[in-house]
């Protein structure tokens, strides 16, 4: 169950990372920065809908996307 919970949470983070990648790459133009809720806050971190993610989270997502699609 613990593993399942961890996986559930990781897919949630991957969804966030997708949004984060779009935001960071600026590919959609739809993710405007709104009062810090979407921003590159500092070295190594990015904020997506208020969630504080690492660059690594985003990189993993990109790898996942390339592999998957």
């Amino acid at each position: 169950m613990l593993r399942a919970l961890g996986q559930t949470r990781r897919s949630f983070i991957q969804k966030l990372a997708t949004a984060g990648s779009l935001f960071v790459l600026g590919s959609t133009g739809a993710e405007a920065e709104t009062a810090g809720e979407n921003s590159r806050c500092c070295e190594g971190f990015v904020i997506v809908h208020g969630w504080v993610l690492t660059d690594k989270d985003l990189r993993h997502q990109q790898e996942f996307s390339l592999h998957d699609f």
Partner: protein
Amino acid sequence: MIFDFNEAWTRVAAAAPYDFCICGTGPAGITTARKLAASGKRVLLLEGGDLSYSEESQELYDGKSVGRKYWHVQSGRLRYFGGTSNHWTGRCGVFDPIDFEDRRYFGMPGWPISREQVLAGLDEAKDILDIPGSDLSPHEDPGFRSTAFVQSGFALSPPTRFAEKYEAELKQSERIDFFYNANLVDIRLDSAQTSVESLSLRSLSGREVKVSARRYILALGAIETARLLLNANKQATEGVGNRSGMVGRCFMEHLNVPIGRFVVTAPDFFRKEISLTPTDAFLRQNDIGNGIVHFEPNSSPQSSGRLRILKQFLRETSCLHPGLTKIAREAVDFDCPGDGTVTSLLEQVPNPASRVSLSRDVDKLGLRRVELDWEFNDQDKRTIRTLAMKAAQEMARLDRARVQLARFILNKDLDIEIGGHAHQMGTTRMSSKPEFGVVNENCQVHGIGNFYIIGSSVFPTGGGTNPTLTIVLLALRLAKHLSTE
């Protein structure tokens, strides 16, 4: 011996002379009284309230909150035997080394005594609070290697209820006379205003008497101590001990900020609440206040977690469909270490604009009620946002959780949601210089030789942990100082 002032009000003056008169029977007052009595001193111990809670007594704490809304003016403290120990939660921690340093960015001097001086009575204080042998040191967690945070060290008192624990001892004591229902209403000074001559006591039924002792100690908490000093304005219009205008100023709380929520990525790490406290190095690097960031998992089906409804449904349907029982039980009994909330207990800087003063309203005893203007400044906002952001980053970097910060943390244009923890501190702060405080290193009121204050009101800074243990430590230190004089 224990007496009801309503019945034995003539006895309180007749039994003089006392070495000490102590007002207040919370952890500070009772600890000081017991320690002084143990050293052979005669003590008059006074409590304004009754032996148990009454609306009539509690109502005397009512007052106005202006400025930042403060919910605990009346309810955060208790006005009867045992004081606020009657409803504290029992969390005990010691102040960190940095709490005793002079932090210039605070804008006010820090503690004029060292951490070692405060912690000298730690073993005895632990016994008093029923946490003997507890390790209170913050510690590095092998599962959370960070230069910015360590796990907060603390112990949980049962919690000790001082009235329950010490009533029998006070009853049998030959050196302590304890009067309840004895309300302090005035402090009379000598003509030079350099020593206290007497205290005026009044019952709610109107009985009034003056009492004298060699020395006087107020142990009434941060709001009431300031209120009593400001009300005692017949000889000095500014109130007693208030020549530099510092009485009531620098009211501090531990800031209670709902920082955000989190989802775990390392479920094993969150089997219990995680309390992170910043390292001294991180605080120095960022010039911010101390504190604790709590990660509280929603850990049971009874919790407010978002799986609660599903679990409830599974539990109920499993009774109707036995085939589902095994599966359902697995889900219902699962102790979910999942999503949780991030809360905090953060240090507020000593800010003279944050203050206790008197309103125009008068209580049943004829004293002006309190008006509390709780304020916080840009330094406090920086403490909140810096600790919140760094905690979120560290959780992500170490892959323990991901945190969604509250909008007001990220958007500096929004007002931060700040509550208190009912930790009232700092209105008669300790300072070696009268212009920055009300009492000196020995808790003696500046300029008044036989007058002392003890309790969280003397804290020059609030630190990043719960205050009760430090209150008891300071009481032990004061009693030791006075017993050897």
